[in-house]
């Protein structure tokens, strides 16, 4: 087979699919290799009995309606991928349950005005601070657009003149800004619900990032593909092939071949393939650790920089197919956030333990896609994450019971918080722990959230250090470990960005296409 390519993309997760499509559409000879037997990475699906489960996606922001696409929807359209997007019914329902906590049970809608109005109903007197919040979010969106238009390198003078409010708030922790806005505490708690999508508490997560995240979800609403994430991944596979790309499944990259400090090819379980530009959609740990001898030929500063990164939330999810409808069960919403505590700092700390009441982000897929399972049934999934590598201490023999113990806690907590009964109706159940993510996606420690974007490693700092963060010439990361962070929309944008950066690398060395 063809062994010579312009670009080799390692890993067909969201970032890799996006990078491969972006590269093909620009006319580069592109090889996409994936160790599993299908595309998507986390963006996949699996079947048990009468049910097909969504493993990962809760809601994809930045899609938009046909004809009025937002950034990610437009990018996917531009690749030529056809996806049947389903708009989600509401933003989320947040339930805070712990003793000594002010109880919260808030169902929040999409739409800026509707969201502010609903917040005012739950928290009288919150309106002004909420309006200010969305004003700042708008400022941040505008500034982000300006920075992007300037190719990531905005002139500080222009920024000070045109986007002063961005500069005044974006780099502070979210909680600091919300307090400064004099937002009532309860409103702060309700607004903070999305923190668990990043796994970084509100005293740490930068406001510029969080405000734009909320803006994207609330103002533009969120979507999922009708036939689970696998539909999106299969559509991307199709368009990559149609644009001349080559995809190899069941093919594991084992080594990066180097010459004079730059890659020249990739050894795989199906032979060696050659390219001078590599886009990994996997972790730097895997690239430098597994494929470059632990990074021993890298400069010391680069080894330190990789080892200093903090692995983010390790994923855990229990999937159930129930033999009752959502209506019969009294499960009314699509998206739930349920936790014992409203203090995200404490939550993040406790997420590093096998605690009694893990926080959960829970989905009832049937409330977005009523016919996602046979009549008389419904599908739910309960997700939590672990902020420390505690699953590394679990033995083979303990493993199944440990998985089940967490599953039972999550489902019982959901039942208690919502006054429903779920356990008696389980017809199919599957549990994915960090070890499951490690198995299928080969991620270090079973990480769902790549490198945490907290503790100084946020989006804005990463974007300003794009070139410094390139540890090896002509290698640009498309994964959630890269500059654009984790999550579906981020990795889709990250894949495209990795190609743009690769084109910059090519220009610098007057690269000619093969």
């Amino acid at each position: 087979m063809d062994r010579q390519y312009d670009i080799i993309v390692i890993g067909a997760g969201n970032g890799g699919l996006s990078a491969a499509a972006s590269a093909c559409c620009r006319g580069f000879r592109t090889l996409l290799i994936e160790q599993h037997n299908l595309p998507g990475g986390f963006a996949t699906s699996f079947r048990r009995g009468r049910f097909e489960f969504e493993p990962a996606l809760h809601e994809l922001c930045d899609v938009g309606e046909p004809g009025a696409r937002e950034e990610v929807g437009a990018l996917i359209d531009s690749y030529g991928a056809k996806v049947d997007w389903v708009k989600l019914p509401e933003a989320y329902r947040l339930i805070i349950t712990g003793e000594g906590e002010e109880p919260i049970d808030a169902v929040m809608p999409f739409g800026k005005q509707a969201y502010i109005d609903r917040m005012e109903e739950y928290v009288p007197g919150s309106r002004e601070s909420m309006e200010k919040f969305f004003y700042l979010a708008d400022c941040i969106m505008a500034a982000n657009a300006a920075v992007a238009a300037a190719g990531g390198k905005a002139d500080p003078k222009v920024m000070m003149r045109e986007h002063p409010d961005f500069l005044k708030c974006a780099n502070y922790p979210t909680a600091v800004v919300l307090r400064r806005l004099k937002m009532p505490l309860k409103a702060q708690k309700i607004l903070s619900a999305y923190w668990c999508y990043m796994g970084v508490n509100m005293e740490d997560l930068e406001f510029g990032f969080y405000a734009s995240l909320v803006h994207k979800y609330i103002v533009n609403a969120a979507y999922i593909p009708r036939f689970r994430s696998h539909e999106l991944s299969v559509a991307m596979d199709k368009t990559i092939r149609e644009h001349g790309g080559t995809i190899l499944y069941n093919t594991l990259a084992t080594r990066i071949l180097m010459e004079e400090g730059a890659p020249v090819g990739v050894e795989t379980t199906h032979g060696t393939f050659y390219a001078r530009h590599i886009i990994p959609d996997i972790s730097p740990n895997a690239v430098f650790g597994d494929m470059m001898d632990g990074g021993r030929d890298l400069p010391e500063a680069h080894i330190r920089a990789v080892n200093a990164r903090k692995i983010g939330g390790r994923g855990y999810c229990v999937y159930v197919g129930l033999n009752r409808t959502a209506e019969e069960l009294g499960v009314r919403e699509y998206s739930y956030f349920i936790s014992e505590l409203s203090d995200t700092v404490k939550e993040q700390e406790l997420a590093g333990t096998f605690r009694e009441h893990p926080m959960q982000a829970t989905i009832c897929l049937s409330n977005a896609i009523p016919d996602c399972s046979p009549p008389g049934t419904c599908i739910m999934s309960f997700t939590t994450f672990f902020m420390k590598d505690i699953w590394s201490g679990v033995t083979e023999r303990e493993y199944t019971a440990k998985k089940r113990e967490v599953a039972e806690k999550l489902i019982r907590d959901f039942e208690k918080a919502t006054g429903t009964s779920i356990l008696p109706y389980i017809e199919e159940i599957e549990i994915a722990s960090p070890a499951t993510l490690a198995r299928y996606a080969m991620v270090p420690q079973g990480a769902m959230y790549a490198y945490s974007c907290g503790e100084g490693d946020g989006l804005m700092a990463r974007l300003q250090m794009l070139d410094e963060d390139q540890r090896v010439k002509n290698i640009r990361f498309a994964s959630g470990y890269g500059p654009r962070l984790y999550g579906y929309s981020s990795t889709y944008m990250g894949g495209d960005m990795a190609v743009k950066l690769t084109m910059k690398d090519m220009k610098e060395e007057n690269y000619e296409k093969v």
Partner: protein
Amino acid sequence: MKKFNFHVKPIGLLDMLHFKKMVPRRRAILQSGSLDPITAVYGVNRLAQSLHPKQQKAVVSAIIPRRDANTYVLRADKLAYFRAGQYVSVKLKIGGAVTARPYTLAASPARALEGEYEITVKKAQDGFVSDYILKNWKVGTEVTLSGPEGPFSYEPLRDEKEVVGLAGGSGITPFMAMAYAILDGIEDFRLTLLYGSRTKADILYADELERICAATDKVKVIHVLSEEKAEGFEHGFIDAELIQKYAPENYTLFICGPRAMHDFLARELPGLDLDEKHIRREFVPAPASPTYFGSYAGDASKVFTLKLRFLGEERQIPLRADEPILTAIERAGIAAPSRCRSGECGWCRSRLIGGDVFVPDSMDGRRLADAGAGYIHPCSSWALSDLELEIFPE
């Protein structure tokens, strides 16, 4: 809303300073890392590897002869732990063909941790693979296995405390693993096993079952003989009446046996008033011919041509209409991925580029988006025309 005066710090310029500190701060953090070799393999990655190895090698260490069957004890320094009821796919090279078959792990999961598995291979009608194994595997034969696979296991969050197992012939094997797991304290449920054999002499694991029942009151076995009447044994087939006779009040049914047994039970089970939740079925391999399925409208006597693409290569091979597509690929000596060979697991997922196939509803384990985009599972698909197919060898 209109602009408002916003400051976190009293003087706006400090914000710019705060902004500028971002990069030096991160730079300092990044230089605080260690000089240890970079790694992506942590404890949980090793746990995943040991629970789910891509491939395992073992050696036949003992053979227990049974009627028309052998139990093979497989040994290695280390074998993956499993859930009672799971199988391994055994990889084989027979003449010019490469193939694989799923065999249930029949011993206690506890023995896997000591490096020991057991599988039982029964002589099958038209049994290309079983004949080969029974004739050729000796003590010392090296075998290649997949990791443990399959969802046919007890799950307390889903299943009742009481399980009624229906086993036919070599379908006893997952229940052996479950019974041993109960005995070893690995699983906690009560198992009432209705085990169908032709005659007393055909019963597999008769002594072992007796020993287990003597050692624990959580496992009970009722032998059902179809071709022999004997005292202390039920006679006939396992039907609704027999199940009701032995079943406790609330129970989950686990079924493992030949296709004929499943077909018979499909007519019996409606009489039991059990919902889908309470019926667990082990996968049933493809039948000898697609004409078995009422919905088949092809001509099973035809031989088509399969244009096969893999790893940039292209081969043309003959494709019999009466065999699953996977069989044609394997006969040509091309190693296609497979595990369950029943349409369910999806390991053989392949891209159909051209041509028509027959996929019976009862064996269609494809993902929704795959079915819409032309992907098939060749283990459970039959050709209706010449085909062009891309497979993804492991």
